[in-house]
């Protein structure tokens, strides 16, 4: 359907055509064809903008992050094991209790009292 009034307004249509005219140089189209085929061959990476570059990096970045989390987790576990081991060692070395026999022997109280005292004192 042709709008008669519009069809008389050739200057606007001409300006539209001039504005949207495709490049006329054959070399441009040869170059564009090469770019299209290269784009298809590499699966689209490279000209989609920074978001596609980020998307490309996302997978290795996630893998690296997972490895970092595992390493950090292992380090935390190892540190806690060391701290616990050191804590036990410090407690054991700081307060080694005398045996019941030696406590009884050192005491002047009878054997039964010495045993009770030992138990109460620990």
């Amino acid at each position, binding site marked *: 359907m042709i709008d008669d009034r519009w069809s008389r307004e050739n200057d606007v249509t001409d300006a539209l055509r001039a504005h949207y005219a495709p490049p006329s140089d054959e070399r441009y189209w040869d170059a564009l064809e090469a770019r299209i085929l290269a784009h298809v061959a590499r699966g689209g990476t490279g000209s989609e*903008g920074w*978001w596609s570059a980020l998307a490309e990096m996302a997978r290795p970045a996630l893998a690296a992050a997972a490895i970092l989390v595992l390493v950090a987790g292992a380090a935390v576990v190892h540190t806690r094991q060391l701290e616990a081991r050191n804590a036990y060692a410090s407690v054991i070395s700081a307060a080694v209790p005398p045996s019941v026999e030696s406590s009884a022997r050192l005491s002047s109280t009878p054997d039964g009292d010495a045993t009770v005292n030992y138990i109460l004192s620990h």
Partner: protein
Amino acid sequence: MLAPVDGDGAATERAIVVAAQRGSDDAFAALVRLHQRRAYSVVRAIVLSHEDAEDAVQEGFLHAHRALDRFRPDQPFGAWLYRIMANAALDLVRRRKVRDADELPENVAIPFRDPAESGELRERLQEALTHLTDRQRAVIVLHDVEGFTHGEIGRTLGIPEGTARSDLHHARATLRRLLQNIRSNS
């Protein structure tokens, strides 16, 4: 007007499409050579710049290559391809809008400025085109510049034919109103 090949050319094109579907890179290159100008025109009607049109054409052919095995050779290849091109262009426009909204909103109002172009009508036309919706602009360019029919525009943009007709009417009315002064002075 939509397909760049007719008659015997269509049969040849069908053979090229089948070869491309079987994995021939040369056949796909032939399809690119055959359709890239028309594909450029379709996406140029939708995006705001020549550079965006180039990006959209590349993306469109990439999508077409990936979807080639789903194309039925008894269908018109051009219509199928240009629909993919239009979708690639519309997707690019959406991404640009999101990006521009995040960056400098004031730049959105002057997307058509090209210092190399001269002439008051052309400058006013560029400004007036920004007053159209994306779809109205695409419809008027596809119809008045590329010669698409309303039905072809509807199939390419994925809208009813009546909507394409209505968009064309409103786009012309808007341009006529905005360019009235300069046209009456010229």
